[in-house]
């Protein structure tokens, strides 16, 4: 009964969210048609919708989407492994944490994408450059949130482990990591956002392919509706990654 109620309310929430999106789109359409917004800067949402099939056919969007998705996947894989391990190291070694935490936090606000010439010099005009920029951009929030999650584990849970004479690895695997997991996932979601923004940004700048290049091509042709439609596919990539992340979190911590 409780499960049925919970399913119903989650459906209601999803429907409400969708209704809000539709309403906001209608408001923008209405404001543009009334001349309250400039149609030379913002295209009509209805035009964006209508341009979708054109974009899919002309720009071979599936390929571009797959490229961006793959780049993001590789970058996030690196972010997850390196970010979580670095967070663990900073938690474990207090001196290392004191020496680097501020720098890691500062790196989170750095516009990494603007350093793309450096990455081009190091990795060439290849997918590696794009993946590495996404990886570097997505790393700080994962490190910081892993550290926060581990450090924020309730003392009493650690004491339960100590009272049962858990070894260092058991303490980490059985108590610290599961306790930190919700915070780690917050970091992964933030990392994903940073990663995707930078990946699309660098695709836009170096014209190597992917959704960023589609956006660039359409913008240069002053195809506003096409540009916004391509941006819609970037949002779709983000949504797909968020769904996957959420599923993994639910699998690891079923009660969340």
């Amino acid at each position: 009964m409780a499960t049925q109620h919970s399913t119903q309310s989650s459906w209601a929430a999803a429907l409400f969210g969708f209704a809000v999106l539709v309403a906001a789109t209608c408001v923008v359409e209405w404001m543009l048609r009334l001349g309250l917004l400039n149609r030379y800067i913002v295209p009509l949402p209805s035009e964006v919708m209508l341009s979708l099939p054109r974009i899919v056919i002309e720009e071979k969007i599936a390929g571009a989407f797959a490229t961006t998705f793959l780049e993001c996947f590789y970058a996030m894989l690196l972010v997850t492994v390196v970010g979580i391990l670095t967070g663990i190291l900073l938690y474990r070694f207090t001196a290392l944490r004191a020496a680097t935490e501020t720098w890691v936090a500062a790196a989170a606000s750095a516009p990494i994408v603007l350093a793309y010439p450096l990455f081009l010099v190091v990795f060439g005009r290849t997918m590696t450059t794009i993946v590495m920029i996404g990886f570097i951009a997505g790393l700080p929030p994962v490190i910081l949130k892993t550290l926060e999650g581990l450090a924020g584990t309730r003392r009493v849970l650690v004491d339960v482990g100590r009272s049962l004479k858990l070894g260092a690895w058991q303490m980490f695997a059985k108590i610290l990591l599961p306790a930190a997991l919700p915070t780690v996932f917050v970091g992964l979601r933030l990392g994903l956002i940073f990663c995707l923004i930078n990946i699309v940004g660098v695709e836009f700048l170096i014209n190597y392919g992917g959704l960023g290049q589609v956006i660039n091509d359409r913008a240069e042709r002053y195809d506003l509706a096409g540009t916004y439609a391509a941006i819609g596919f970037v949002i779709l990539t983000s949504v797909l990654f968020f769904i996957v992340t959420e599923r993994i979190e639910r699998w690891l911590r079923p009660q969340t």
Partner: protein
Amino acid sequence: MAQQDATRLTRLAAAPTERVLEIDNLAKQFDTPEGPLKAVDDVSFAVRRGEFLSVIGPSGCGKSTVFNIIGGLQAEFEGRVTIQGQPISGPHKSIGMVFQEESTFPWRTVLDNVCFPLEIAGMAKAKRHDKARHFIALVGLAGFENRYPAELSGGMRQRVAIARTLASEPTILLMDEPFASLDEQTRLLLGDKVLQIQQQLSQTTLLITHNITEAVQLSDRILVMTFRPGRVKRIVEIDLPRPRTSEIVSSTAFGRYVAEIWGDLREEATRGMQESEASARGGKG
């Protein structure tokens, strides 16, 4: 009355005298920004097998320090703590700890929480599940095995923590104000449950508490501590019939014990309050 006496005599005759836990001249000092602070000093007592002993004292008397030292969580201290003759130098498998704070693992079901110590001990899955189910039933939570702690009340969560500790079959069950965060009615009912389990398993239990009613309801003996530095002020034998339930709180004898212990504690609690106020004034000035 005759029946009460018979029960008492039977209990006394059966009362084992083997000392499973001995504490000799225990002292602990902490370094604070205001200088060294002696939390406990010259504390000596023993717990006999199957006995329920409560340590009671005002806030700041070092009860939790004693709990942490006996549990092996506080490594540096003066004096000697032995369990079945073995000195303590860290957490000991003979001691099972139940903490004041909510300590169930929120990511594990009730069954998996109770299985935890057995899992750590390397017990096979089927066997540990069977054993965990037994202890879950013992604390009255049969049917809740697959629930997560977030789906349970505070009292139920504390019962999960007790079942988890009991599952490791400790020689001594060490509890630090396990019902402190619960309301009075739940506290009394959980007291009944603890008494029932303690009697059923003949579990040696050491309870740290500041609640006089709880201590009298559950204990064979009560150790009253002074305010800082915590010292043993007095040990009171609670000669109330067993098996007990929370109904005993309405008896005259129970009221006498509560009044007697409060008489001992009042002076210490007042001193504690006065020192806290003086310290707050000093800090403000």
